[in-house]
């Protein structure tokens, strides 16, 4: 039942609002609201009970294994939450002076330094609020760079066909045209196609390496050479940084600009869909264009650098310059794992992925790129199962939920049919991986013996399979007073 449907006129969580209600007669009548908005009227206990129970309807890292490819669902240390929520941090107004922010600024400055070192970039801005905003900032810097050089011909951004959808979307938001580069059958970018595509119109290329097909592109140096030679810049999509953390650095591969998803690699919470944080790192030539604010350190202490300090900056992406609470969590995580821990992240993420792939192959599942090492993730294709049993990837995914496993990413990347993109992350134990293999095996057995059980899945969750087509066609996006009976009728 919706919280709105529990509402009763006159009920209230009385302790939560001021006990006295002063006059506001100085506000002109015509600008005042005529009727109260239809917000829920419930008691404090009703709200607590409702949202506590709702929470229990979620899968989450704290309750389930979540091998969701490309999302790096690893453990979010609880200390990161409690320490980022210390009153001194939480209560600080964004416009408070630097004298009242040295603690925060020290953490942000240190984080900038850590991110620089681990990515091999020259400078870092923590401003972008999420990966997609980091991408926007990165492409905007590429744009600013070319424009500053008077190079207005570069109107095109190259993007591999396997790329995350945000890559082309971000390029378009920055006013670029997008040109797709095919992926070769071995999973690496088709180098010939790339060479054919680059030219004076090329502003840059957006790549993630390891790519979304779960392999490390062995030709990365050749790619960099080709793009740079044509005057373009290389953008690194940090979505898969977990695979190489402390092992290979984007800066060393030749990338000019990079965004990092702190909610992936630096284990800040996904929060049911956000907030993220998408810091950007750049090579020296792009430094002037970094989004503000940045944190600097002088003898007098830490200070913000803003528009006036950075006149060539691409500017400000949010009003107050970033998801500070998330940056603090990432900083705490980085300090907890430390220098050695960085490399271990990639090592054990890679170990888990390759082990899980090997076990699934043993169990008869088909790898999309059987000749390749898995990076931190890999693709299994269920095209044989779909053909033979009529049970498709979505059915497998939904049935996994019944077994207590969140489904891997389905039908992405688009170029592999009936695919599952599986990323176990380094924080899962061998037993959990083995349990997942057992569930996959059991489901394939069901697909053969009792396919309806798989196609009708899930069976054990609060709802059974939902009708997405109906959702999009008969739009019901908000409760309105009086509409309850119909909806639940």
């Amino acid at each position, binding site marked *: 039942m919706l919280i709105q449907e529990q509402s009763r006129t006159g009920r209230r969580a009385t302790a939560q609002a*001021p006990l006295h*209600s002063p006059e506001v007669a100085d506000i002109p009548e015509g600008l005042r609201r005529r009727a109260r908005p239809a917000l829920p009227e419930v008691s404090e206990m009703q709200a607590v009970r409702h949202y506590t129970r709702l929470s229990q309807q979620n899968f989450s890292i704290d309750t389930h294994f979540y091998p969701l490819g490309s999302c790096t669902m690893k453990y979010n240390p609880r*200390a990161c939450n409690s320490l980022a929520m*210390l009153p001194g941090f939480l209560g600080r107004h964004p416009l408070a002076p630097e*004298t009242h922010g040295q603690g925060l600024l020290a953490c942000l400055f240190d984080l900038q330094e850590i991110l620089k070192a681990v990515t091999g970039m020259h400078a870092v801005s923590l401003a972008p609020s999420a990966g997609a905003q980091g991408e926007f900032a990165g492409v905007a810097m590429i744009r600013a760079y070319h424009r500053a050089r008077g190079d207005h011909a570069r109107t095109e951004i190259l993007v591999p066909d396997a790329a995350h959808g945000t890559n082309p979307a971000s390029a378009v938001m920055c006013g670029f045209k997008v040109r797709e580069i095919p992926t070769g059958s071995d999973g690496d970018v088709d180098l010939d196609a790339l060479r054919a595509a680059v030219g004076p119109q090329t502003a840059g290329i957006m790549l993630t390496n390891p790519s979304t097909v779960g392999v490390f592109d062995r030709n990365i140096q050749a790619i960099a050479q080709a793009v740079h030679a044509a005057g373009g810049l290389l953008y690194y999509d940090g979505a898969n940084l977990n695979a190489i953390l402390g092992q290979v650095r984007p800066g060393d591969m030749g990338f000019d600009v990079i965004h990092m998803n702190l909610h992936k690699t630096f284990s800040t919470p996904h*929060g049911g869909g956000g907030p993220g944080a998408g810091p950007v790192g750049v090579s020296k030539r792009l430094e002037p264009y970094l989004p503000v604010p940045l944190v600097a350190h002088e003898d007098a202490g830490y200070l913000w650098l803003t528009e006036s300090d950075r006149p060539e900056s691409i500017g400000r992406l949010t009003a107050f310059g970033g998801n500070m609470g998330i940056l603090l969590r990432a900083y705490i995580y980085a300090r907890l794992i430390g*220098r050695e*821990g960085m490399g271990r992240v990639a090592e054990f993420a890679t170990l888990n992925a390759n082990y899980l792939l090997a076990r699934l192959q043993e169990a008869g599942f088909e790898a999309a790129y059987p000749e390749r090492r898995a990076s931190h993730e890999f693709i299994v294709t269920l095209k044989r199962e779909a053909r033979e049993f009529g049970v498709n990837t979505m059915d497998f995914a939904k049935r996994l*939920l019944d077994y207590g496993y969140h489904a891997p990413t389905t039908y992405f990347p688009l170029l592999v049919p009936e695919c599952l993109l599986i990323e176990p992350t380094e924080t899962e134990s061998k037993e959990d991986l083995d349990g997942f293999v057992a569930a996959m095996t059991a489901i394939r057995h069901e697909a053969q013996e009792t396919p309806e059980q798989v196609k009708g899945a899930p069976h054990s969750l609060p709802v059974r399979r939902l009708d997405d087509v109906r959702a999009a066609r008969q739009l019901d996006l908000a409760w309105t007073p009086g509409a309850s009976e119909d909806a639940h009728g």
Partner: protein
Amino acid sequence: MPFIPHTPDDIAAMLATIGVDSIEALFDEIPADLRVGAPALNAIPNALSEMEITRLMQARARTDGQPLCFIGAGAYEHHIPAAVWQIATRGEFYSAYTPYQAEASQGTLQLLYEFQSMMTALTGLDASNASLYDGASALAEAVLMAVRANRQTKSQRVLIPRALHPAYRRTLRAIIEPQGLELVEVDFDPRGGHTPVERLEAAAGSEECAAVVINQPNFFGILEAVDELTDWAHAHKALAIAVVNPVALALLSPPGDWGAKGADIACGEAQPLGMPLSSGGPYAGFLCCKQEYVRQLPGRIVGRTLDLDGKPGFTLTLQAREQHIRRGKATSNICTNQGLLVTAATIHMALLGAEGLERVAANCHANTRRLGELLGAIPGVEPLFERPVFHELALRLPAPTAELLRSLAAEDILGGFDLGPDYPELDPALLVCATEMRTEDELRRYADTLARLIATPVTSSSGQVSQV
């Protein structure tokens, strides 16, 4: 190995299954000359235990202090019920992913649907998305959306008031400028502090505009004549975009009621709905619109539907607008919402309800009004504008603002926002705000301190800050 569960036995067994000798061998496809050497990572400190990082962070948090805050300017210190974050940080909300597997995410999805319903109730519009990064970037998305959605004109021009938050104007520029849109700033009336229709008229000139941004209250706290402004926009083929404070909406006319037809889009910062100040983020932007524009709405949207058994349930919908399906043709590149913050906002609104929010708004307003009285009694301090305000107040000062603010800060009072840098013609001027959190004693403490500072100007300190 913090957060890594592998025992030596596990590692050996796993390597054997893979058929390699060492973990190092798993990186054999990476060109050897690219592998990072240990010295390159030297700038990263060694690991700390949780006890050690706790000590460090506690010390740093203490450094930032807990000064008495009279700054508003887009971020407001409200009471947040204890239940809000105790529930929002439950693992099932905190550590869940985007609800792509709807059946395993009904908690988050239903909550988002409830949030959307609350935001449409507050704004008086038909549809809401599930949040964007913050208020300023939500405005940028609103502007992009309006330009796409406006079928009456192909204009790429948008009118924005100068009395809109300076940081919002900067953000807007940074985000929309690469797409070739043109922003035209509309000045405010120097006496009233509001944005008269005549100024819109003047700024627009003879060219069409795609949208007009209307800010209620505006950055100075001044109440705009929103009905006239909205009607003007509609009369000129422009969409009306409302930028509003959700707490203020508990008292003020909702955008859906503005003018004859209502604003088309409303957006703003959801921070006042249960989000800590937190130095500026994470917050959440909200974005609502009329039904006819819903397919141009960027960001995640949750819809109610039915399951195989005909039972109601919730799912992400209209995904065809989004980047993971539409790629370069998406309504936006956005692929997150501020889920955790929306969780907090939803619980916050459920706990406050309409009457609770109204009381919060009324108390903020009364406190700011009272602060205005107390500060106004200081010689040389007076209201900058003469029109009615809500919740925030611009004052003229008899001495340089930055210096006074520095001296106040030295006494742990954050005196407000210095209007001078962004509005040189108003200098020296100050924007103050006293939320429901401020007591009469605190208001007096501020007024007494400011009176003393103005009466006896001191040499400003060197501005030195201490290190942590």
